[in-house]
């Protein structure tokens, strides 16, 4: 197995695993956050604006973990630094 196909295989498998595992945690966390925010709005509809704003900011914070995973998998697939290194070393 040449080093090029080895790197390709490792990158593709790792990219899939990264986004698959990395999205589990944020999904559960966002679900909990939205559920609690909904019950809070149901209890206190007057505080809807504050709860919604805090919910959005919190969701952005939680979501950024998944976004990091996504960016890493995109870098592995489309802008892989090792790939270019091996290609330039081969030539």
């Amino acid at each position, binding site marked *: 197995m040449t080093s090029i196909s080895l790197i390709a295989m490792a990158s593709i498998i790792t990219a899939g695993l990264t986004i698959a595992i990395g999205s589990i945690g944020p999904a559960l966390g966002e679900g909990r956050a939205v559920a609690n925010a909904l019950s809070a709005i149901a209890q206190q509809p007057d505080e809807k604006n504050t709860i919604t*704003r805090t919910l*959005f900011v919190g969701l*952005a914070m939680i*979501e950024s973990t998944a976004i*990091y995973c996504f960016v890493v998998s995109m870098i592995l697939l*489309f802008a892989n630094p090792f790939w270019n290194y091996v290609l330039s070393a081969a030539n």
Partner: protein
Amino acid sequence: MNFMKIDQISPDQVIFFQYYFIKLNLTILFTWLIMALLVIGSWFITRNLSTSPKIGYGQNLLEILVSGIQGQINEISRQKAARYMPFIGTLFIFIAFCNLLTVVPGYESPTASLSTTAALAICVFISVPLFGIIRRGLIGYLKQYIEPTIFMLPFNIMGEITRTLALAVRLFGNIMSGSKIAAILLAIIPFIFPVIMQLLGLLTGLIQAYIFAVLAMVYIGSATQIQAKTQSEPEPQSNTHKNNDQ
């Protein structure tokens, strides 16, 4: 019509025009187009403002936008909105326009490039100590870094840097993922489904613009907040946002 190929993750990589060492890529092109659109549009609308009950469509739109942003700033920082309005409002309107114009065919959002979002995040990174020093003085601002104990100093500085990084990568990742997923789906299921994802992308884009502006305001608000001396005034609520940097 699409300038970007599917394996290019950033509009920086598409060179539009090159003259020796001067490169014009898509990010710069569309950033300047949006800036021109915003400036010319605002100039055109604010050219003849009226105070009579009958106002034009444009003035009505701008009034709703400006008063909405002012209300949000007031609620978050519990301070006068006028000081933060130019910075936060510019951030929100610029990012919102960048993201919403993706319905135009051939357009690539400048916020899908890490260099644009990093520049915006660095603006926030610089403006937080600026506003803090203006409001609390140099000593008062620097004191918050050693607030509970002096051992927290490295963590506070680290938090300052990581939250700037998070701000940049969050916006970049969201917008880039939206356009990339639409492009990938276009190759797999060409007809209806990419349209739905584009609509979802519009929603995400607006929410991301809102979140960027709110987070910038929360950071500035926590840096400019003065401890209440008198017991009669309640503590501002932005205390809870102080350590949510991730």
